[in-house]
């Protein structure tokens, strides 16, 4: 079974993002970038499926600027076999990415596509569901457990009320939640080995996809700043203030 994993290069989760003065977006110049944390979980799951003998090959794909190749390289160092880079500059919308991924999945004959449930930059939480729709496949979103058995994938999903299990007809698309696994750190020998693994390039034109943005971003602004920082001495003072000052108890 060939597994396709989609990864996105985003601002590192530990960086405090700053809105650009001119309101066109957030500052990305000289900011530390990294693989989206949910995508790391997707790569880890694919590598584990391969180690368990369930997957035969893991292909990592990323749409984005030239530097997205570094993100692909990270996934290769974690154990994926080869990469595909789709060069794209400017905003990358979920629907366009889903169309690109559909083309790649069909071309490669993938039977399972793993993605993060959302990217921590635009927080859309759409691409996996859109990809499943376009392929006409089943979907298992927000997965905390995946078991593949012949033609069926049993996926446990993190939902608002707790956990839900669905049985999906293969092929399928699965998006990862936080508790699916703990991604490994790439070892130095594997980082060296990853440098020799192939990364192909396919353009949106090659794949026959129109990536013209559908949404117009009119403005990006700072959220209102919340006042805070006041302290109280003890529980008695706290309860008094909550009751008599804030009026919330």
């Amino acid at each position: 079974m060939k597994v396709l994993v989609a990864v996105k290069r985003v601002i590192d989760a530990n960086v405090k993002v700053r809105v650009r003065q001119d309101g066109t977006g957030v500052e990305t110049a000289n900011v530390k970038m990294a693989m989206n944390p949910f995508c790391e979980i997707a790569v880890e799951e694919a590598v584990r499926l391969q180690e368990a003998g369930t997957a035969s090959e893991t292909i990592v794909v990323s749409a984005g600027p030239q530097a997205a190749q570094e993100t692909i390289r990270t996934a290769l160092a974690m154990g994926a076999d080869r990469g595909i880079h789709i060069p794209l500059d400017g905003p990358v919308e979920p629907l366009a990415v889903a169309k690109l991924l559909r083309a790649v999945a069909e071309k490669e004959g993938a039977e399972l596509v793993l993605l993060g449930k959302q990217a921590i930059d635009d927080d859309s939480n759409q691409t996996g569901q859109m990809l499943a729709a376009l392929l006409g496949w089943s979907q298992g979103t927000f997965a905390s457990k995946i078991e593949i058995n012949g033609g069926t994938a049993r996926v446990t999903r993190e939902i608002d009320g707790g956990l839900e299990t669905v049985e999906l007809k293969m092929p399928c698309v699965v998006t990862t939640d936080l508790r699916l696994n703990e991604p490994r750190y790439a070892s130095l020998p594997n980082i060296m080995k990853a440098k020799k693994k192939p990364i192909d390039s396919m353009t949106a034109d090659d794949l026959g996809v129109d990536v013209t943005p559908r949404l117009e971003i009119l403005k990006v602004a700072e959220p209102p700043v919340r006042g805070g920082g006041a302290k109280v001495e003890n529980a008695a003072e706290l309860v008094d203030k909550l009751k008599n000052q804030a009026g919330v108890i």
Partner: protein
Amino acid sequence: MAILLLAEHAGGHLAPATLATIGAARALSEKGAGDIAILIAGSDCAAAAEEAKTVPGITKVLVADDAAYGNGLAENVAGLMVALAPDYSHVLAPATTFGKNICPRAAALLDSQQISEITEVIDSDTFVRPIYAGNALATVRCKDAIKVVTVRATAFEKVQPGDGAAPVENVSGPGDAGLSTHAGAELSRSERPELTAARVIVSGGRGMQSGDNFKQLEEIADILGAAVGASRAAVDAGFVPNDFQVGQTGKIVAPELYIAVGISGAIQHLAGMKESKVIVAINKDEEAPIFQVADYGIVGDLFQVLPELKAELEKAKS
């Protein structure tokens, strides 16, 4: 123009997030987006439909009563939405795990670029939504013929059922897509209010040190009629189940009072609770970022503060 609203419902009632989505739909309707039809899909959903028709602002209730829609399977419900959507200019759903699972699937089939988790309606095709865990607010305009939008429940007033009497119409769709089945669920059962609907939330973080210690938070929650939440760190450590998680990728909450205990205040956690009206932080680390958003902070050992807080609350309540 007209709005199709996908309802999340359970036990014969509309979910609180659905009531907030109706609030967003009404804001949209006032900006010229037309009438609001609410879609109740499920099996045996007559009671939810009866409730829906009374909610002010609803002009039509569409009922798709079919076992295929009973468990909210995305493959089936998205197919139904796609069948109905061409009569509408807007498709709305709550940004809950239910809506987030289904809506993008329908959007892709409608060739529409969904706008996720809006917090404000500017006009019929322009919306505000948080990005980067709420550290920036983007104003976006959608040019697609059918605009697909999910709604962040905490940003809109919940419209409570009233004395409306919108007409109810039965509809059907493609039914079972034959791609997936529901194989079971482990739902948390609690006498306490639901996190996203609670007026007061008591949340614990890694500082709680164990799941057993969450009992101390539960005791305080019970005095206040509060829900119990947690940070990602506490969930990852196995102290409490996943559905307790408040944050960027967990639940987004905005209660009147949020008490954060042993939570340092990572960006991802703040994204889920900083719209709360009053925030209390109890943490032994004076430098913890949670204090920057707290209206009332106590620097101290939570295991010393919690028993005192419990005693003071009991005194205040008696």
